[in-house]
């Protein structure tokens, strides 16, 4: 499809701000003005709307396709939460109004949403308090690690390391490094769990924290988890819970009960808010009692008279990690989702998410290698090693699935599994759509024996064929330029 810049028609005009209803003041002195107007396309409103509408049709999305992208929890995003987020009272509120003197009263509705969501998340995770401010999961991780650093500093303890397993999300070691820590990586043992012996060898009083995903990134629940948290606490290290996989265990186990000290949640995963093509998400961080005083400011408090207010009076707080109170629009949708599902609904979501994943696992285990042969939680991880021997790699499998109308699973993650295929069906997908996906996966397994080239040439049904990624990286073309278009 042509770029929007290539659709430019000189002299075409659409949106206008109308006549200026105030007089013309002296223009801004030339030296402060841009020399040349920004080169932007001139188009009618229909041109723009048609362009983006047609672009939207080139995407797979949850509303159009089964999207079993492991680790991302691409469940259905209920429409009523979208509508609620569009209520004028929420949409138009300037974030600084509540910081004016007496301004808290101007934002009681939004403050209540933040406060009540925090209370619900505390109960769901068994943590003492949450900051709703982190703007995405990785932002929550960074916030969480900074809280851990503040805690150790307050104890006069200088610690250098953060431990992560080699199966962790890349964001864990990256967040630890950006917060100023060195990273120690623990290998995964042959049973799929973090190698306990290697872990204990690395654990000492220089370790600030251990970051774990639970259930872990290979989709299994580590039954030794309590032993790990106790060992860490014994040397004064704190336990960090990456909540990416919380959807599997809602109401089944709570991070606080296991001994985790810091938790981040991905509201866009667990609580059904849309992923927006890459964001916005929201990554609230919950902490145990001993870390509460370090949480970012402001915090929302409920006063004795039942009203809500912003409180900045936390002298040990790490400060501001976001400009305001978090991605409010996302938090609001998660709140609506939790209210609608209620206790039974949340538990059922976890149960059916796990049921669907185990169903995939059971039906595909004869066709694909299973690195760790046990029941899984909300996602199952296969290896395409068997198919790779015939030249059909995880990437090829993904591309063939695209041709058949399925978004591919997450591929090549976790890094420790060769040719990884990570399938997360989520609880909102029906048996028949999962069956159709499974049949296609079985067909691919068969084709990789009989006619691998059919898989390797995919996709053939899409508007484009496979793209040359090496060329994109070697000769970066990251923007359109006016002079290139005039040929």
């Amino acid at each position, binding site marked *: 499809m042509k770029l929007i810049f290539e659709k430019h028609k000189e002299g075409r005009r659409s949106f206008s701000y109308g006549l200026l209803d105030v007089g013309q003041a002296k223009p801004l002195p030339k030296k402060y003005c*841009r020399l040349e107007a920004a080169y932007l396309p001139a188009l009618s409103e229909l041109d*723009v709307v048609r362009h983006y509408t047609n672009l939207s049709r080139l995407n797979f999305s949850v509303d159009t396709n089964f999207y079993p992208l492991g680790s991302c929890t691409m469940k259905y995003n209920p429409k009523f939460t979208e509508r609620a987020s569009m209520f004028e009272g929420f949409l138009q509120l300037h974030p600084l109004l509540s910081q004016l003197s007496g301004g808290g009263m101007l*934002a009681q509705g939004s403050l209540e949403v933040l406060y009540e969501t925090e209370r619900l998340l505390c109960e769901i995770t068994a943590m003492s308090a949450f900051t709703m401010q982190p703007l995405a999961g990785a932002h929550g991780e*960074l916030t969480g690690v900074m809280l851990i650093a503040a805690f150790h500093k307050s104890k006069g303890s200088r610690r250098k390391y953060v431990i992560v397993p080699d199966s962790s999300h890349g964001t864990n070691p990256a*967040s630890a490094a950006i917060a100023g820590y060195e990273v120690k990586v623990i290998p995964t043992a042959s049973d799929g769990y973090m190698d306990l012996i290697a872990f204990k060898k690395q654990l000492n009083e220089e370790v600030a924290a251990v970051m774990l995903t639970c259930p872990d990134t290979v989709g299994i629940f580590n039954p030794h988890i309590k032993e790990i948290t106790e060992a860490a606490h014994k040397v004064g290290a704190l336990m960090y819970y990456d909540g990416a996989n919380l959807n599997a265990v809602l109401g089944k186990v709570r991070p606080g009960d296991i001994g985790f000290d810091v938790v981040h949640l991905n509201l866009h995963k667990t609580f059904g808010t849309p*992923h927006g*093509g890459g964001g916005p998400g929201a990554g609230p961080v919950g902490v145990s009692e001993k870390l509460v005083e370090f949480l970012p400011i402001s915090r929302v408090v409920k006063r004795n008279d039942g009203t809500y207010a912003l409180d900045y009076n936390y002298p040990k707080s790490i400060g501001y990690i976001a400009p305001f109170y978090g991605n409010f629009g996302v938090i609001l949708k998660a709140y609506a989702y939790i209210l609608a599902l209620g206790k039974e609904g949340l538990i059922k979501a976890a149960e059916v998410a796990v049921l669907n994943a185990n169903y995939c696992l059971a039906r595909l285990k004869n066709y694909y290698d299973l690195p760790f042969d046990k029941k899984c939680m909300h996602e199952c991880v296969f290896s395409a090693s068997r198919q790779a021997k015939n030249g059909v790699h995880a990437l090829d499998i993904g591309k063939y699935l695209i041709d058949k109308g399925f978004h591919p699973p997450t591929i090549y993650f976790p890094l420790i599994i060769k040719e990884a295929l990570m399938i997360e069906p989520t609880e909102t997908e029906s048996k028949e759509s999962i069956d159709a996906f499974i049949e296609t996966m079985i067909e691919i397994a068969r084709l990789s024996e009989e006619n691998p080239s059919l898989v390797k040439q995919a996709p053939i049904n899409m508007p*484009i064929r496979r793209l040359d990624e090496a060329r994109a990286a070697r000769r970066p073309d*990251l*923007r359109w330029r006016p002079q290139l278009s005039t040929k």
Partner: protein
Amino acid sequence: MNFIPHSKQEVQQMLQVIGVNNIDDLFQDIPATLKPKSFNIPAAKSEFEVTQILYKLSLRNATGLVNFVGAGFYDHFIPAAVDAISGRSEFYTAYTPYQAECAQGWLQAIYEYQTIICQLTGLDVSNASLYDGGTALFEAMMMAVRHTGRNRIILDSGVNLIYRTMLYTYTLNLSIEFVEIPVVHGQSSRQDLLKHLDERTAAVILQNPNFFGAVDDYSDLVLSVHKFGALAIASVYPVSLGLLKTPGEMGFDIAVGEGQSLGIPLSFGGPYLGFMAAKNELVRQMPGRIVGSTVDSEGKRGFVLTLQTREQHIRRQMATSNICSNEALCALRAAVFVSLLGKEGLRELAEHNYQKAEFAKDQLSQISGIEVKRSSPTFNEFTVCLSRNADEVVHRMIEKGFACGFPLGRFYKGMDNYLLIAVTEKRTREEIRRLVDSLEAVL
């Protein structure tokens, strides 16, 4: 309510295939001792009930106030087409476009967004978005630290205090040395900035227009910054770039800012949009997703995520940033917004903002008890000094239906009588007149 499609029979069939008797058998790896001590979540509600609860809550926010509060976050008009496009679920229920062949819509939209940010800022390259203007500024600062191998940052205090505070929080455990330069009469002090520049300086961070609304041309200063081998970073307000000299024209190496003003609602502080643009030579230091153009196996143009060896999912602790999810949907809104406006519309938007603020200044300067600060030109926001405490005035004005500005005493010592007033294109002549009359009555 819930969104699970399974019938009881289907659950049974699936359990049978799995080879277990009931769903609890699937959770056997969780030791019994770890079962939740409580799970006191209210019972399920209907869609109607939840909608009513939220609607009533939305009415408990004040929405009727005529808004003159800005301070980095502005009340601009959003054309309906922006909502229509970002409300298409083929956009909003997709995720990061890892699989290019089924995400060309998203990838092309981001490539166009990157181009728009480059056109606005006058710089070479951009990325697929960051969380907000403050985190974008932190990322820019870290780019400069890595690029120069230095750790000293000169920070102009005309930079939004919220962002300065965020920089301090993020660097609590990093060895970054900050030198903060006070503003003089609301303007950056060149003398002070130059005095502190040296060979240890990684970057100088400036904001245009600055927090007090003052517009500047930093070209001379950027030249000096480069003489010391440091980078110049600008935090900018994108709507102002319809009119103001761009960071690129002034020679800045990196421009970042809050993109909320480009078609994104105020929404009590988020979701917003951090944008970033930089010179070509810094592209491999950039954080986050970047979309590039390439060709498919038949030579047809297509778009992919590229230069991924910078990123956390490959480089882990060596990555340029830990960012994964970004604010793509907000970036899409910005792209649609700017495309609808076009070159002329963007200039008109900036012009209306400038003219209305000038009108307000002129009107306000005619009443007693207000001194409009005129030491430098401004764009759509300006500082006034009141004859009494600004906090009290703001409070009284709320009763009269106005959010009349942001009291600077909240952020700056000794500025208790100062008020920062923003006038966007949405404010009518009549609203400005009423603001002036009401202020006169209150003062």
